[in-house]
């Protein structure tokens, strides 16, 4: 009986090998398909990859090295997260450079923060020396935040854009599941804020360059009149000075 059972569960020779190959192929195709279909423009956006305390690709920066801390938390049974704590005297950020063309992009993440003030926490894009982004609402639970960004041509920016997770306020903040996707057309107003980075930078550039000359009427006066009138007033002043000094 036992042998019979054993025989009935026994596969034909070579079959197990086929199943193993098939399963491997299915897995490989699935992974490849997933990778090909994932439209996240960020590398390691789910924060699952890295070594020791350093997440793959993400860079940690602080204004003051000793104050506050930056951590990559990656438990086996939960999504990875980027965390910054700050005593309020520092500015710290995680960042990742990105290659972005003209168009609309949607940047989203899950955030939780107890930092005060709330606008000291930013998920956004740093470009042209400025950071554009969104801050979390109040509350320590994970919340989904995001914003659409409109970018201009690459040559309009003096440096490569960076996606930044920044804290300049007192407290702690975590980000996870960070995604940046390209949006085919201008988004309708709705869930996410819309930030026209191209327009903002163009406006700043225009403001910086205001120095348009405004011409005077054609110079018509005789040059000798200037020293003459100046000397006349100087003489009047000296006369007043001398006469007031008399006994």
């Amino acid at each position, binding site marked *: 009986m036992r042998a019979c059972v054993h025989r009935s569960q026994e596969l034909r020779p070579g079959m197990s090998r086929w199943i193993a190959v098939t399963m491997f192929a299915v897995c490989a195709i699935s992974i490849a398909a997933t990778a090909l279909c994932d439209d996240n423009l960020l590398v390691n956006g789910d924060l699952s990859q890295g070594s020791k305390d350093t997440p793959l690709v993400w860079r940690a920066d602080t204004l003051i090295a000793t104050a506050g801390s930056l951590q990559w938390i990656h438990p086996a049974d939960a999504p990875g997260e980027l965390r910054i704590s700050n005593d309020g005297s520092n500015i710290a950020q995680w960042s990742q450079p990105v290659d972005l063309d003209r168009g609309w992009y949607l940047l989203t993440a899950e955030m939780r923060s107890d930092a005060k003030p709330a606008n000291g926490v930013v998920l956004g894009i740093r470009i042209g020396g400025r950071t554009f982004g*969104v801050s979390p609402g109040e509350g320590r639970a994970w919340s989904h935040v995001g914003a659409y960004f409109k970018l201009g041509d690459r040559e309009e920016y003096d440096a490569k854009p960076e996606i930044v997770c920044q804290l300049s306020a007192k407290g702690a903040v975590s980000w996870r599941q960070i995604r940046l996707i390209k949006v085919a057309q201008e988004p309708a107003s709705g869930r996410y804020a819309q930030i026209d980075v191209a327009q903002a930078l163009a406006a700043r550039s225009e403001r910086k360059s205001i120095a348009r000359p405004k011409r005077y009427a054609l110079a018509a006066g005789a040059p000798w009149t200037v020293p003459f009138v100046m000397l006349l007033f100087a003489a009047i002043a000296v006369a007043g000075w001398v006469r007031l000094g008399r006994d």
Partner: protein
Amino acid sequence: MAAHSSAARDPWRAPAWSRIDTIALASLVAAATVLHFWHLGYPPEIVFDEKFTVSQARCYLMHLPYRTTHPPVAAMTTAVLMWVLGDQPVAWRIGSATLGTVLVGVTYLLGRRVLNSGVGATCVAGFVLCDGLFLADSRLCLWEIYYLTFLAVAYLMLARFVQTPDVREGRRYLAIMGAMLGLALGSKFALPAIGAILVTVFAALSLIVRMSGSRDKIDLRRAMPLIIDMVALVGGTTAFVYLGLFFLNYWFGWWGGIEDHLTYVKQELHSQTLMVGAHPYASQWWTWPLMLRPLLYWFQTNFFNDPQMPTSSIRGMGNPIVWWAVVAAMVSAIARAVAQRENFLREVLSDWRWAFVVVGYLAFYIVWIPVARYKFIYYYMPALYFGFFALADLLDRCWNGRAKTVEQGALLAVLVPALLLSFGVFAAMVITILIAAAYAIATWRDARVAGKFASVIFLLAVGGSFVYFLPLWTGIPMSHSAFDARLWFRGPGLPNWL
């Protein structure tokens, strides 16, 4: 300033300086330095009329002409600072910040001489320090603080001249006064001329008093030659400095001679007549003392349409409690002048200081009534500067128990609308009743204590108002609700706060 109560203190002599004066002056200047230079580079972009001053400065650096209404002192100073520090916001504004800090110190020195009181001088310099319009303008590259500071130094020189017995010794103050008037006229078109006329008239008045021997009998004939000499010294110096400030226009060949300068003045005077009709930031002259229509200098460009995000703005608005109390103080000062109308000239000759404050306020204010062009609230600043002196005098008299009960009551009454607008009806009523009860008890016990009580409560309110409105003057970010709470006058039928 109190002609009627400080007979022992001769207004024609300099008051004694004490160590407390030194400490008060140093503290005020230190506070002004912090307030004016803190985050001076923010916002890092052109704000309001900086587009004119900074553009003109850039054109100077590029040797390009920039025809504008206002004379060149602010733009030339900015150009020099940009040449040294680079084209950056701190360089644009460091001139205003420095002069704004100087203004606080000069105001203390002037207050010491005009009010003859350390308390009064501290108050008047404190008002300049704690007023939003003076603060905001000290942190931006605009013309106002330039000409106001130069005028304030001219007033101080007038006080020094008047309080120097020897005319020969005092003429150096007249020379400095002339130079300062030239710089003031070189900073803002036409308006500082009122200050020039004012100080010249009061310098002449002091000469009349000196030459008359008795203050009861005017001897104009003896004083006239000295007055002519004084006008020559002051006027000649003023004109020399003012004309010299346009040297770059000649140097670069934009102007050929004095005729071009006259053409510029003529054109700008004519252009003033064309500025009629509506302007979104304009306000009527009668709205200024009550601060009904402040203006918006700058607001953070809202790239994202998220109402949860904090917002920042910088507003050309004053400290409402100080402004409203200035109205009460000026009414009190003018009422005293009217009461003395039969002996007005004798009173003026007896003590020039209160007349200087009242005439200065009215001269800079009334001049705008017939002007048809659209006007802005910052035109009120030179009049307000004299109003600060009247208010400081009122506080000084309250503190020393010399103010009437109605004056003390007026000082406390201006707090009521502020309490109503900031705390709501119920809380305002409770606080008002508590203050009124405490004041009544103080009056019942001792009139001097009541005066001190009114002064302290008022100054506490000024300090609270300063802290409350500071974000609107410096652009500190705030939530939309906090921001809305500070815009007291909004709604149909009201001249909205911008």
